């Protein structure tokens, strides 16, 4: 069985079985990751499908220099970025976020919205992708900075400075929202 941070020595199973294992292990988190880029579950589903098909087609390309987790995340991040730059995303589809914005909220919903962590989660999803992804990978997907550099095909110093800026950006947004956050 494939495990998150262990280096996979060999894959004795058939390719279809390997794909099945990959989806059991990463299906849930990859679809959630895709959602953080698209903010739309239908698009996240379509991209997740593409990600695993691409992973299946490139199973033989997997090298042991990285973990299987970094490898599948790298494929996922590239697919997500291709998608958000494509016409389908940039021009045609309204995301769930906008629907939320255009609806007027009931007092109860307002109260829920104001819950601190929920509010921060919302602000994270509003960050530009380059900041959003490092925060999510580092804090919520538990990647090391080195793993993020591999997954994003970037160098370590860029990742470090991006993470710093991402946090600063988030703080600015939190101040803008008038929240009293515990730092």
């Amino acid at each position, binding site marked *: 069985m494939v495990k998150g941070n262990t280096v996979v020595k060999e894959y004795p199973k058939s390719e279809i079985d390997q794909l099945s294992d990959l989806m059991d292990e990463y299906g849930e988190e*990859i679809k959630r990751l895709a959602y*953080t880029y698209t903010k739309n579950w239908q698009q996240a589903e379509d991209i997740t499908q593409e990600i695993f098909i691409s992973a299946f087609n490139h199973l033989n390309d997997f090298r042991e220099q990285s973990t299987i987790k970094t490898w599948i995340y790298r494929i996922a991040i590239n697919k997500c970025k291709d998608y958000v730059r494509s016409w389908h995303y940039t*021009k045609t589809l309204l995301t769930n976020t906008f629907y939320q914005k255009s609806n007027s909220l009931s007092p109860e919903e307002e109260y829920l919205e104001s819950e601190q962590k929920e509010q921060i*989660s919302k602000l994270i999803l509003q960050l*530009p992708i380059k900041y959003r992804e490092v925060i999510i990978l580092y804090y919520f997907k538990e990647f090391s900075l080195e793993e993020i550099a591999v997954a994003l095909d970037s160098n370590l110093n860029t990742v470090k400075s991006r993470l710093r800026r991402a946090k600063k950006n988030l703080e600015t947004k939190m101040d803008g929202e008038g929240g009293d956050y515990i730092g």
Partner: protein
Amino acid sequence: MDKMLKEMKDDFENYLNEDKVFTEQEKRKIMNQVRYSSAENKKQMYFPKVISSITLVSLCALIVFLVLNFTDAGEKSQPADLHKEKTVVKKDPVKKEDPVKTLPKYSDKEISDKVNFLQSNIVMGMTEKEVIAILGNEYKEIDNSDSESGSVKQIGYNFLVSDPADQLKISHEIAVESIHNREIGVQFYIGFSDQSEVLWTTINFAEGDSVLMVSKGMNGRGIEKIYPDSNSEVIRFTLTSEEEIIYQKFLQDLDEKHLKDVNPISIAKLYVQAQLDKRYDAVYALLTDREGYVQWTKEEDEKIPETDRGTIMQTLITFNNIDTGSFIPDGDYGGYIEYEASKDADAKSGFKMIKDEDGIWNVAFMPIQ
């Protein structure tokens, strides 16, 4: 901040969705797709072998046929052969020799290139002589008597014509069907003033299943779907004359100084127009450069393939009615245009704008969200 973020992993995941999002059904769907693709690939691998066998068999058959035919020709000198006469009677030599009119069809890419060429090279105020020097003499003068646009003369060109007989088949009625069938790629009409200068132009062409009309005049420009007819709503996009002037100045040098004091809706319209004109350098230049909001570089933008840029119809449908939308400020330097792209849509559309540090409104990266 660090501590708080580290502690909120589960909260963040719950915020996304409290339930499991990747279902067994999705997994099965992917597995089926992969199995299907693998089967298809195998078929493709097998195909060349089958082709080789078929080719070999065909070659043998051809040799046998030629040998038999040669023998048959030798028999022609022999007396009456009833079997052959019957065969001749059954055939319809006239039908057989009737030439089949196969019209070459021009691709959407060729048509689109021609439209772009006309849009960029034939401009208002150009003289008739200059127009003819660029487009050639194969035009037809069209009855201008009922013109309401102030022109004193109109001419029309057909471009990318499949059948040479259609070259000058042009009247004041647009050949919608021929354009739709790509028998005529582009119909181009020009109206001249009493000074023999271009007063207006109209380009008619097909894209996908639609026929579009791009018109330019002194009062601005517009693009409209003219076929198929839609009773429910008109799909049209226009720039006012003021916006057209700003747009033309901006295209010259892509300098944002031309956008100073222009309202966000007009800026959004320039973005749409640049998208329609496939002026992707202008599209990018209209995106925000506010720190922290730039999502990809100009170099990366240039690498976006044409297929991901969207067609004219997609652009028209997406931004339909943006000019009648309302701008809703959101925060110190943000806001969005709320508009109703279609009466049938479940919700209104939103187009995000950002005010840059210099006070000029720009379009947000991925504006529709």
